């Protein structure tokens, strides 16, 4: 029994040290290929989020629906996800979205905005329970006009 215990005492710290607790995951993009000709589809509804230096703009491909200035030097992601959720309720069949950024925006903001557009968490059926709802998971990115 003591030998077994000795083995455990050695194994547990060893495995604890080698264990990886921060997991890397990936975000897949739907990018148009540069070789693949003109992608001419009829102008349908498409969610567009434009990230500017000091403001987030939400559009539907034709007009700007809402513009959310920075609050305390942070992008207002909560009101963005509220607006996106409202758009999803109006267009439940649409999945594509574009995130358009100005060139000096940091990469971190791109990921955060993509998160807000991709899914949101809503209160579930039970009290205090949150469920994640997919909004527009097909995200492509590009330059801000």
């Amino acid at each position, binding site marked *: 029994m003591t030998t*077994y215990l000795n083995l455990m005492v050695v194994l*547990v710290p060893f495995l604890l040290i080698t264990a990886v607790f921060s997991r890397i*995951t990936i975000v897949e993009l739907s990018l148009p290929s540069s070789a693949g000709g003109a992608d001419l589809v009829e102008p349908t509804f498409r969610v567009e989020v434009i990230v500017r230096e000091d403001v987030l703009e939400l559009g539907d491909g034709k007009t700007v629906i809402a513009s959310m200035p920075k609050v305390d030097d942070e992008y207002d992601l909560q009101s963005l996800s509220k607006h996106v959720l409202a758009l999803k309720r109006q267009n439940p069949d649409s999945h594509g979205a574009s995130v358009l950024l100005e*060139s000096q925006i940091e990469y971190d903001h791109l990921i955060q905005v993509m998160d807000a557009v991709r899914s949101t968490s809503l209160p579930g059926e039970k009290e205090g329970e949150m469920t994640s709802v997919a909004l527009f998971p097909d995200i492509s990115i590009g330059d801000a006009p």
Partner: protein
Amino acid sequence: MRRMSRNRAKIAALNLTSLMDVFTILVFFLLVNSASTEVLETPKQLTLPASVVEEKPRETVVIFVSSTEVTVQGERVALVADILAADGQNVTAIGERLSQVSDTILGLSTRSVANSREVTILADKSVPFNVIKKVMSTCTSRGFERISLAVIQKASETAQG
């Protein structure tokens, strides 16, 4: 006096069975945890942004973009400052290295990496979008058309209304 000696006797005969039970469970848990091999190694010098996505990384060509330099499949090819200063959408150095990766196939793992025609970009939080965009457009122009961005997984925010 008699009670004290009884207490001492109890401590001396410490029961190790429960401790062993705990250790056994811990060892199995950690073994299973470490058995799920990591496809991507977290580089020390860059901090990835956090996201709630749950997609697992695959074996692909890996591009690191730290705050100073760009590394393709383990080889340093360009500096971020040069990319920022350069005109045009493509970065020649990265493109050449990508073609080199898909041309020189040594061993099975490299073959699967090159044939996947996929790129995973691990970029530092603070890198400007301009650089990422140039790197991505270089990838697509060299035929690597499926691009994934690596992030650190964070727990989905349950507190948010």
